[in-house]
């Protein structure tokens, strides 16, 4: 799962070419992703993992790093 997301970020979203994407890397703070990219990532997650992410959940705290995203997704999946 995490590799899949990392791959998507590297290929489709990252502003600059990326070799590695660590689980704890700050996606926004490091400038890897900008806000438009983040929204695209969210749309991708919704489609890929069959979750609905309402605007209220679209906060930095849920998407700061790959680890955060993973935690958020499993919480979301649990709710459904």
């Amino acid at each position, binding site marked *: 799962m995490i590799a899949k997301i990392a791959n998507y970020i590297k290929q489709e979203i990252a502003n600059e070419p990326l070799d590695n994407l660590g689980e704890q890397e700050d996606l*926004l703070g490091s400038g890897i992703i*900008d*806000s438009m990219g983040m*929204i695209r990532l969210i749309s991708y997650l919704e489609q890929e993992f069959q979750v609905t992410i309402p*605007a209220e959940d679209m906060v*930095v705290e849920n998407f700061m790093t790959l680890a955060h995203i993973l935690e958020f997704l499993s919480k979301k999946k649990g709710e459904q």
Partner: protein
Amino acid sequence: MDNTDSNHIELSQGQMSLWTGQKLNPDVPLHNTAYSFEIDGEIDPEVFKEAFRQVVSKIDALRTVFFEKEGIPYQTVLSKISNGLEFIDLAMESDAGVKAYLQERSLKEIDISKCIFDSILVKSPVRKYIWLLNIHHLVIDVVSLKTIFESTSKCYTGIIENNLEEIEPTPLFTEYVHFEKVFQKNPKNENIKNYWAERIKTIKKQPELYGVYNKFDKTKSTRVFLELGFERSQRLREIAQNPAIRSWTPHLTLFNIFSSLLFVYLYRVSGQRTLSIGAPNHNRATKQFQKTVGCFIQIFPLVSEILESDTFNSVLQRVKLETNNYLKYAKPGMATSEINRSFSTILNYIHTGFPDFCGFPTKTEWIPSEHIDVTHQMRCHIVDFDATGEIEVLFDYNRAIFDEDLISRAPHHFLNLVDAFLGNIYQPIDRPELLSDSEKLNTNSEGKTDLDAFISLIDQFNKIQNSNPNDIALRHKKEIYTYADINERANQLASFLVTKGIGKGTSVALYLERSPEYIIGVLAILKSGGTFIPIPSDQPSQRVAFILEDSGCALLLTDTQLKNNIKSVDIETIDLNLLSESIKNQSGIDTKIVIGPSDIAYVIYTSGSTGNPKGVLISQCAIFNYLNWAKKAYTTGDKFIFPLFTSIGFDLTITSTFLPLLTGGEVIIYKESGQGPDISLMEVLADNKVNSIKLTPSHLALLQGTDLSHSKINTMIVGGEDFKANLAANTQKTFGKGLKIYNEYGPTEATVGCIVAQFDSNKHKDVSVPIGTPIDNMHAYILDSYKNLVPKGVIGELYLGGTGLAEGYANLPSLTEDKFIKNPFLKGTKVYRTGDLARENSYGELEYLGRADDQVKLRGFRIEPSDIEANMLGHEEITNAAVVLIENEKSVSENEVINCTECGLPSNYPNTDFDENGVCHLCNAFKGYKDEAQRYFKTTDELRDILISKRGKNPNYDCLSLLSGGKDSTYILAQLIGMGLKVLAFTLDNGYISDQAKGNIDKIVQKLGVDHIYGTTEYMNKIFVDSLNRHQNVCNGCFKTIYTLSTQIALDKQIPFVVTGLSRGQFFETRLTEELFWDKNVDVSTIDKTILEARKLYHQEEDAVKNLLDVSMFNTDETFEKVQFIDFYRYSDVKLEEMLTYLKEKVDWVRPTDTGRSTNCLINQVGIYVHKKQKGYSNYSFPYSWDVRMGHKTRKETLEEINEVIDEKEVKRIINEIGYQEIGEDESNQKRLVAYYTGKKRLASKELSEYLKKELPEYMVPTFFKFIDEMPLTKNGKIDKSALRALNSSQLDMDTPFVAPNGEIEELLAAIWKEVLRLKQVGVHDDFIALGGHSLAAIRVTARINEEIEMNFPLNKIFDLPTIAEYAKYIEDTLVELLKE
């Protein structure tokens, strides 16, 4: 790539809207995007030229040109263009000269068919170079611009450093165009379209910024630069770090902050709460597109609903969510033109910077094109081009709204909000001030009178009477009183009062009719040093008792007759009739009591909100201030002669009483007329003795249509309620140019009048006459809910300050404290909070815009609905009550009516819409089904076949032909005979067929050799009256009588067909509705069936015909089979000309001339008269509009006929003759108070009205009482008075309680009913027929229901189940049944 011709590339959605904008405004540089880059370094112009040439050769966007083919725009990329960089040496120019050059050059028109850019390198005076790059927006956005800038810099550096690498061509924009098209068509993306459609649904209107109405037709704009500076920018960035506020990135957080500030700003300068802002989105969906040069940006709206409780933070939190959705749905090609129309303010947050060129520091400036889209009222760009960390706000103000003055003020308003936000993000958005101190200084009245010149009312009177003792002061009927007369009598009464202990600090009530005694009484009380309290004679005794007690007055002056109304109160009562002799014996010498400015002159009781009236205390100084000003302002040079004809309890009457008496003029007294409506005004005008008058707009409305050109009135002061400009204009016309009309505004609490405008018909063209500017020594402030001054043009609550303020309310210290608050602008003084909404117009005059609370004005009387409600709640059966004022439904005044440019339908026909070409919605709708409708019509051959199809069954006649004697029915008869048919002609003699018409009929039947009978009924007049009451015309009743009687005859004589003369226009008017043709495959026989159903229902409708005539045959369906109705003109489409020629040749028909109209019926005009009077338009407007649409009449003919002059004398005679009770002008025109209540059970209206009459004056007793199950509530849980106001009079008349629709099906039905029956509001228990639902409406309603829920419910269901509740249940049950199956 698709196989589009690469020379004919279509435009993207974004390009298309830019192209259209430019096309509509061809001569302005609307989309020039000009940037100047000031490069601080030594540049080699030749190298620069080469660098730019290379860039152009690699970037396709710069070689793109546009062309049009068959109206469709295309773009194509040229392989080469000759244009390049131009070098200009302006080193010898001044700085300003260079700047001017750049500005002018930026406005140069770009010919998009030849070259899309203009690129100039300018050598400037201070060894700097400026690169001006101006590119049409069609091919770039700011990201693209940066690519071009950087490529040029890189190329230039490469050449200079001799290590130029080949620059890679940027990806092609055409690929995006293709990508966008595919994306738009992908059905997966429907949800995106739905999101936006849903999002913009609430945006109904764009805000009126600073109250300026925008026609959205100008592009001219002005840019204002607002530098926030380092400190503010830094603090904004700090706040953006706050975890509770931050969004994905610091830039996005700042974007959210500025969006929120802009929402707050828009709300604060427009008052509108539902707002949208358009924000450009870079729309670069893939990595490839991030490098492409082209116009990608699309604008999508952010929508926000501002709440009463909002703080900056709460708005920001909502915006944060809104932005997430905005980003999610801002997808390629989705910014449709509907979306583009959903906003008029732009927030453009640009975080692109242009830091350096080839290592040289660069200063970037975006040079405005001085034009913006017509749909944009303002644009707000947030930029930091040079990446200095200092944020700059650029405003582009559309000059259609922002004039020089406003442009100088508006940026400060925004800045004040920024500072307030920085100060405390948790404060309410209404709290911070918008105005800066310099702007506040300009808001005060100018006129001042010297208050040292104070003379008390009575001293002024004494002075006048000393100098002119023998002048006439009062007239009453034949009695005449000189100043000396009333002075002596007032002195005697004053002496008497003094003996009773009256003096300074005591008050005396006057409960009298308008009379000399009243005026003498007032003067006497003042002479004794006391305060007078006028109580009008029409007050109910409980109210009088309350006032006497509450005021603590020492004495009551009344007369023998009125004394009986007074309940036992513990106050000494002086019956002036009884004591007249003993008063006469008192001394006639003045008391010479000295009165000071702060002594109370009078107390007037006005409607209070608690159920009791409240007394307003007016000082001598306050009334002095008003009268002293009025003397100067209203003088014409002649002495004032005023009528005293308005209520003495009404403070506008103070003017009529004192202004003449303190200036040596005359008062002419008109006593109350006792029972019934007060007709004093009519007497005043008939007498024609006064030259000045003070009255209310309601009074003026009564005079409409009266000839007053000989009136002596030259000064008219109008006050008490909102004064409509068309009423003022009509009044001016009626009285002539010599009349000066003043609109005087002033609550009792600010003494009579304190703001005034002289009406000027050239200037005052808005809906209402402005109230004007404050009088001497008075101040007006328009404040928001935090008591900040609002900017000019913005609506706020009106506060009044100055000498004229009342001292407060009698015995109500806390209410006084509430309403009379500290003046925030003038230390040590008070302001009175009026509760009135107002704003300042462009002339600097104040406009009255209604109430902030729900106080109402009825015929000038000020009424607190809560006063009535409190009294209703006193009734033990009532648990809740709400009172509203309902205005007449006739909303368009006659001189504002326009007629459809195609069919002539007047705009006051209910719920008509006109498009921009002045074409009505009916004409436009008809175009959609006109061709479909043709299927309904047939040929005369078919007609003949039908009429002879049953031959043999009746030996005598093939058909019965209805003959009115008019051209249409005569033509039919002749035609039928011509076809060889055996015809019986039938005419209804309704008693009003003209002699000539009868002659025509007799001649025709004789000439054609046809059998003919007249039908009559003794109930004809009753049927007419019923028809006038029900339909406001006579024709409906007459038609139904004809159908009924002719059916009877046909049945008796076994005639199978009745041929009618309905016109094609009438078909569409009465039965061929749009809905019948919705299904394009529908069979004509289905339509025939529906129409037959409708006809059966028509005969079931309750009315006089059904109740008075024998209609039993309509109860069986057999009748409709035995006698079929055939509309002749369904089979014949004869032109008028042809018809008239035929008639002249065959039967020698002549148009009757003795009806005065194009009809053969004398009573017809009664219908037109009543209809016009009650509904504002002729009952023929609608059917004739159909005749025009059908091509059977011209628009001109129609207009002439519907505007024909009616012989009113004859009409009145007939009205009398048939016994119709005309509804008076008053009843049909006026506003009415309506009370709603809940409780255990419904109470008789009469009982309630009697109950309230004991407590309240007549004018406060509601006309309607309506029992409801439950009060409708607003979102905030308050009683929803606007829902209560929306009920129409037939709904009010209904016995059923009002219950709002609930649930999907009820709401759907309610929406359909409202549309078809043209209602503003409908309750689920309201009866379809009582609401005016006839068979035509039944067809429409049923068809719409069937369409919406894809069912096939029969027509008669609506009559079986005539309420929404019943019908909805039926639908639900049916659907449930279907589901089970």
